[in-house]
């Protein structure tokens, strides 16, 4: 089988009812272009979201429609070629963060992001994926983390946290209510998350644990578009959670980890979980509502919240972070387009792991810059370590490094009123 045939076979497998319906409905109006920051910031028509699916549309036409089949059978339709797939690699990986804004803008209702996620499977099947993502995938499978984080690194972070806290951070505790999964960046760069979570759970008096065989939530498999490898990464978390018999697995401040673990996971492994999956923001909001997350003092800094696409627009967690921020922030302002309509940071969907795309992702950060220029804040709170890195890179690129970027959980914990509990 040639690489082009492998791509076509993969696309035929990926085309389901929604995809067939979406292609049937598209009238090439181009409204999705205005929802894609790669188009709005470059004005390159190739970056129009639906255009990024042209080879897949061709396959749909030739395999699923009367006219297309007829044309193909009499030799008047050209099949998708390997050159075409190679050409589209840039459009599918470098200029799409799977942010989902186009799926909200389409007047005929096409979920274009859903299709691009599927198209990436065909890209992988035919060997067309960016080197940076391929290497991250290899590290995830072989070492256990796309950034090459090992258990030793985690253990070192736990040790630091314990020194800071003065009590043990639970690991591999069977029967705990919650099992916390982290993102690579949280272990490598944003280590304050471990003591933050430990303090919150101690104050709320709930049992939790980390797991030595399932601490990494980042899933490069769904970013690159390889369901097999994505499933393997999910299986590790499922095995860890089942072994420890936890009730709930907590997805970290990482957009794609949430999508992978919460929404794609059971479908990737072909069975429902025996435990619940919730995002850390959902847990914090539940604790807040139960009165178990008390804070003291107010942050006077003028700050905003950047909605990670996979958590808000694609994940439905919009109100929770706002309720949590309002608990400690006295000066919280929204960007004009926020919540489901927020603009992507430009680094999601594997774009940040793709070195080739670096220059462009920094350029298109001009969209976020415009949003920030309108509200003039001193701090951006977010809930995704990938967004956090991208925001920092983008601010640096546009000489706006005076704006601080922080994670929600660790910011909240600075106002946590846990003096009584901590002394228990």
């Amino acid at each position, binding site marked *: 089988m040639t690489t082009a045939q492998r791509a076509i076979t993969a696309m035929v497998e990926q*085309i*389901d*009812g*929604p995809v*067939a*319906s*979406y292609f*049937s*409905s*598209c*009238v*090439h*109006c*181009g*409204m999705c*272009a*205005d929802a894609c920051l790669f*188009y709005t910031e470059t*004005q390159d*028509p*190739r970056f*129009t979201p*639906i*255009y990024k699916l042209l080879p897949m549309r061709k396959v749909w036409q030739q395999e*699923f*429609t*009367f*006219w297309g089949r007829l044309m193909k059978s009499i030799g008047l339709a050209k099949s998708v070629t390997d050159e075409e797939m190679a050409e589209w690699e840039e459009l599918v990986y470098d200029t799409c963060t799977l942010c989902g804004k186009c*799926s*909200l*803008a*389409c*007047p*005929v*209702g*096409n*979920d274009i992001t*859903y299709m691009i996620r599927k198209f990436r499977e065909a890209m992988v099947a035919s060997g067309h994926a960016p080197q940076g993502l391929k290497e991250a995938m290899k590290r995830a499978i072989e070492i256990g983390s796309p950034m090459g984080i090992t258990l030793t690194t985690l253990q070192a972070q736990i040790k630091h946290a314990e020194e800071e806290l003065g009590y043990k951070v639970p690991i591999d505790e069977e029967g705990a209510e919650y099992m916390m999964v982290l993102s690579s960046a949280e272990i490598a760069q944003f280590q304050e998350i471990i003591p933050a979570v430990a303090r919150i759970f101690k104050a709320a008096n709930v049992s939790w644990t980390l797991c030595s065989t399932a601490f990494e939530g980042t899933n490069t498999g769904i970013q690159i578009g390889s369901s097999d490898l994505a499933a393997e990464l999910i299986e590790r978390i499922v095995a860890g959670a089942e072994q420890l018999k936890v009730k709930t697995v907590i997805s970290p401040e990482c957009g794609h980890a949430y999508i992978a673990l*919460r*929404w*794609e*996971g*059971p*479908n990737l492994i*072909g*069975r*429902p*979980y025996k435990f*619940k*999956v919730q995002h850390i923001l959902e847990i914090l909001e539940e604790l807040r509502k139960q009165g178990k997350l008390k804070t003291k003092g107010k942050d006077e800094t003028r700050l905003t919240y950047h909605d990670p696409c996979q958590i808000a*627009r*694609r*994940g*439905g967690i919009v109100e929770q972070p706002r309720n949590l921020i309002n608990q400690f922030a006295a000066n919280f302002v929204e960007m004009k*387009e926020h919540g*489901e*309509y927020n603009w992507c940071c430009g680094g999601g969907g594997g774009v940040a792991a793709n070195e080739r795309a670096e220059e462009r992702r920094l350029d298109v950060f001009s969209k976020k810059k415009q949003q920030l220029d309108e509200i003039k804040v001193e701090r951006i709170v977010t809930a995704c370590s990938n967004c956090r890195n991208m925001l920092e890179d983008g601010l640096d690129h546009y000489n706006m490094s005076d704006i601080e970027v922080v994670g929600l959980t660790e910011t909240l914990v600075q106002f946590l009123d846990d003096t009584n509990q901590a002394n228990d």
Partner: protein
Amino acid sequence: MNETELLTWLRGPGLLIAITIFVLGVVFRVIQNLAIGMPENLAEPKGSTFGPGVATVFRRFKFHRHSTNRGYFTLIAGYTFHIGLLLTLLFLDQHILLFKSILGFGWPALPTVLITFSALISIGALFAVLVYRVMDPVRRKLSVYQDYLVWVLTIGPLITGYLTMHPIGLSYTLLLSLHIISAEILLIAIPFTSLSHMASLFVSRWYNGAIAGYKGVKS
């Protein structure tokens, strides 16, 4: 076959053939898209599918909250064309007579002058979208030959219909025959082209809303 015989054939067997292909073709297209379906979602739902799906079907009729110039143009021209076309199709007294002969019942017609106006508005909107398709780099990039073909097929019945009402020297019978032929070609083309969006967009919107609704997301 003379002009009268042609008209008789077009009004009888021709129309029947066109309507049959149109109805069966569109129904097949929708059923096919629904039948391909999607695997059962094994993730624990956070919301429902049916209600949000229906809500999205209606929500996408509205102007997008953050529309751009392209969006406003597309929606204004799109609504103008579609409303003009529907008024012309459904409220011209000659069309109502045709519907009555097929369905067995009719409804009040709008004054011919109003229908002429709506047809002209519709034709104008179609020309506007054609110019935009050629001028706008995004739309030009997306366009394939079929987009231009369906434009011709769509404007055909509107122009021939207008000429039938305002003859330009040709015989009324000939113009009416041309009008009916163009309408029949359009009907036959719908299931095989992007014109099938007239039915499939409801399925697309429903899928979009249902997939989002399952996750508790508004779309």
